[in-house]
């Protein structure tokens, strides 16, 4: 339970604080809201980009996408 919910709860709390901070305070609040709301955005975009990297290798016959950095030099 703890393992599953720890991160979602942390991100949820950060998002909530981020949404409220900018409303109640001008400068500090704005910075807080940017930082706090950047967390879900960063994690989401990271997940999306990894998925995009995988999707570039078309065809289910290919076993596992070669990671991008594994370019033959």
């Amino acid at each position, binding site marked *: *339970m703890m*393992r*599953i*919910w*720890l*991160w*979602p709860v942390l*991100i*949820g709390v950060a*998002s*909530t604080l981020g*949404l409220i901070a*900018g*409303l*109640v*305070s*001008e400068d500090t*609040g*704005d910075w807080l*809201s*940017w930082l706090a*709301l*950047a*967390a*879900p*955005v960063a*994690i*989401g*975009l*990271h*997940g*999306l980009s*990894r*998925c995009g990297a*995988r*999707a570039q290798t078309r065809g*289910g016959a290919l*076993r*596992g*996408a070669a990671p991008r950095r594994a370019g033959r030099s």
Partner: protein
Amino acid sequence: MQAVTLRRWGWVHKWSSLICTLFILMLCLTGLPLVFSHEIDHLTGNEIEAPAMPEGTPRAPVDRVAAKAVEAYPGLVPLYFFAEEDAPDVWYVKLDTRVDTDESASTLILSDARTAEVLGAPNIDEGFMSVMYRLHVDLYAGLAGKLFLGFMGLLLMVAIVSGVVLYAPFMRKLRFAEVRQERTARTRWLDLHNLLGIVTLVWAMAVGFTGVINTWADLIFQAWQAEQVAALQAGETRVLLAADADDAPAADGSLQTAVDRVLAAAPGMAVAMIAYPGTLRATPEHVAVILRGDTPLTSRLSQALLVDPADGAVLEAGPRPWYVTALQLSEPLHFGDYGGLPLKILWALLDILTIVVLGSGLYLWLKRGATEVRT
């Protein structure tokens, strides 16, 4: 979780999502440019600005602004004056054929607060942004459209809550943010749907629910007006400035003096809006002056005072009801316009992530029954 309970939640998630997905997708897509409407107006030259004048140029009486507006738009009457916090030299003036219309065909113009000259009318009835706005707000169907979209928003709330319930059983064998790469495309999108859904959860709930509240704005103002009128009739008003008070300009029937008397009764506040008698935001006999404070919160949570232009008495018809407070807090939380450009960009990115959640949800449903490739 019991298998049968899980199946029920799955059913709730599937149907609440399916019914609202296309509408919510449309709302996310049309909302994207709306987040930046201010910037887009600025870039496309659609922004009307007041000419620069020396600091401290005196402001014209609002009566003269109203007269000039009516001169430019014969046959119309003024309903409201709005003032934006960051554009003190401009009055937005809303005009219509009568004070008690539903405002669906009203005219909004900008007037110079110092010269009373009409600066122009923002092009809100045509063009790309207008289409985005109408689709987003009421589907060109007035109040019925608003309430319909509000209902879709409520279904989204159900979809989000049921999605959260389903999150745990799906994640039993997975680490947080794990997207299984070696499986089928459907598995990958399922993991991504769960990940993006759970990280955007709070934002989507906040923006979704405040959007629902915004669809009830007309009803909320109607209720508030009825409450204020009832308080006035029952004599339950608080007099902030008596008609014969000698520490304020004497009433002379003009709107400007009425506004000045309100400001005298509420030191430290600024005018956000002036509503003519008979409009939705005032009462049949009084001018309503909506005031805002200067902190981020009090600039949102306005105070509404009533003033009788004839005798100049300034009244407060009871404190702001909770449902008006809810609406006023809902506006910034829906628009994302309270933290500068960085917050707008975050709003847009969260919106895009939500679009991916909706799109992947639809894809998962279309590909349902596709069996996993054995690995």
